[in-house]
């Protein structure tokens, strides 16, 4: 049996496409539609109802949720960008041997083979009231009482985000840096450019695609996360994603759908802005 090349391609892509259509696109449409509907207990009543959205925009509490999420996002994004860029720059432009560069990159990736939940609990012996940090600070006589905001606080949530997400920024940036023709940098140096000038005038413009991809990863990871924030804040910090989880658990689907739509509009808006500036498909193809 032979197929025309076009039919063969369609056949090959069909299972993939079916899953994307029925498990990603259709569900998103249904979430969108359900967000405009009334609800009872564990059921969606197909009547047009604006209350789900009005509740979001009227409630001070909901505004605070979005403000918390945005504040954490800005901190996490700034720190992972600085840290990811610095380390990628070190690995690509300062480490001389390819062997050690590969080893160092591996070293950054290996912790991700451990389950996320285990990586979360690994902070307890460090940051808890009897944890190593408090023991050390008290031992040195810097503090007399253990610091309680180290664990189960916004601080620990942000710390774990940074711990888990820096690689998502570092990887794409290092990938972009690896594609820079090194002779450009040698040429700049021969013309008398200092290291800082090389970074700002050559490297940063050339790694913009990497920064864009990394930023998208950070954005979606922080905005969509309900697990880390719940565990690491001990239920004390709430975000829209957490509120959505709570409403889903209470079978209140339409309000959860409305909050999801607002979040998705925010996320897609930022991603679309980033994609207007950077052509990611070209970056992938290279």
């Amino acid at each position, binding site marked *: 049996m032979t197929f025309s090349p*076009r039919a*063969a*391609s*369609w056949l*090959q*892509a069909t*299972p*993939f*496409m079916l*899953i*994307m259509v029925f*498990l*990603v696109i*259709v*569900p998103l449409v249904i*979430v969108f539609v*359900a967000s405009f509907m009334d609800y009872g207990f564990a059921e969606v009543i197909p009547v047009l109802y604006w209350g789900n959205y009005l509740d979001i925009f009227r409630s001070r509490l909901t505004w605070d949720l979005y403000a918390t999420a945005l504040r954490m996002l800005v901190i996490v994004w700034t720190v992972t960008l600085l840290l990811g860029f*610095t*380390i990628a720059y*070190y690995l690509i*432009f*300062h480490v*001389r041997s390819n062997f050690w560069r590969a080893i160092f990159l591996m070293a950054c990736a290996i*912790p991700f*083979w451990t*389950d996320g*939940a*285990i*990586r*979360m*609990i*690994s902070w*307890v012996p*460090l940051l*808890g009231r*009897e944890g190593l940090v408090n*023991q050390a600070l008290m031992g040195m006589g810097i503090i007399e009482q253990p610091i309680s905001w180290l664990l189960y606080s916004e601080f620990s949530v942000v710390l774990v985000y940074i*711990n888990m997400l820096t690689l998502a920024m570092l990887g794409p940036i290092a990938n972009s840096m690896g594609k820079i023709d090194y002779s450009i*940098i040698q040429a700049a140096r021969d013309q008398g450019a200092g*290291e800082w000038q090389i970074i700002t005038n050559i490297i940063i413009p050339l790694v913009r695609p990497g920064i864009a991809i990394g930023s*998208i*990863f950070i954005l979606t990871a922080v*905005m*969509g*996360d*309900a*697990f880390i924030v719940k*565990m690491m804040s001990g239920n004390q910090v709430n975000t829209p*994603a957490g509120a959505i989880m709570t409403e*889903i658990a209470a079978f209140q*689907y339409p309000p*959860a*759908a409305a909050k999801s739509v607002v*979040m*998705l509009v925010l*996320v897609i808006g930022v991603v679309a802005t980033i994609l207007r500036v950077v052509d*990611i*498909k070209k970056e*992938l*193809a290279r």
Partner: protein
Amino acid sequence: MRDAGMPRPASYYFLSFVFTLFVLFLYGPMICVYILSFQGPTGGMSFPMQGWSLHWFTVLFDGNGRGVGDIHNAFWRSMRMCAIMAVATMLIATAAGMSFRRRYPGSNFVFYSAIVSMILPGLFVGFGIALTFNIFGLKSDWWHSGLGAQLTWSLPFGLLIMFIVLGRFNPSYEEAATDLGANSRQRFLYIILPIILPGIIGITTAGFTSSYQEAARTSLNVGTGNTMPMELTALLGMATTPVMFAIGTLTTLFMFTLVIVTLVVVARIAKQRQLRLTRQSA
């Protein structure tokens, strides 16, 4: 900068220091977990160590379920899903990747739907699937909605790996086979498959590990019975003994073994191919 023979600039030492701190930041907490999992029977969840023992590993295995919840069943539930996901991801993503060797109407749609699925926060995809099942009156269960939800996460990555693999694929090998009279089945089996095999193994491992780690999509669609990440998160909330750390040490060992076996297999395939090439040219 990295030119050999030139003296290291001061910035090198500063950046090395930053990198060392970063590695400590990544590994420090994990190393605490590994050490504390050998805590003595009277020890708690933080330092100092109260002697060394394998007590918490025995609690994990023959304990009466105190502090370890349903972890044994969760592990086997996860393994069952991981095995199916590894095979399904490999087949579906490889086929979809192969379709991109030709331009066809709809290829952009496939590409962008994969990108959308990858960058959308998992919570929303998971919620969407759960809501869809609810509206159509279907009861979610691990073998349809659960696997389906995980596929929306693993498939885009599989496709991405295929893009990378096929981007490096030299079409002249295939043309040579065609010139020698190979049909499409022979071309795939004897030319394409051996060349992209390391990539396919990579996709299989990615399918396995993404299924093992995924929680946001899975948790809303898996029906009754937690998978590993969900069970661990649930245990985390009420953890009071180092038995959690014993689980951490064992699951890390498990993942290490898996990834290293994959790397060794891929390296061996590459080496054999290298040997064959050198033997032919000699």
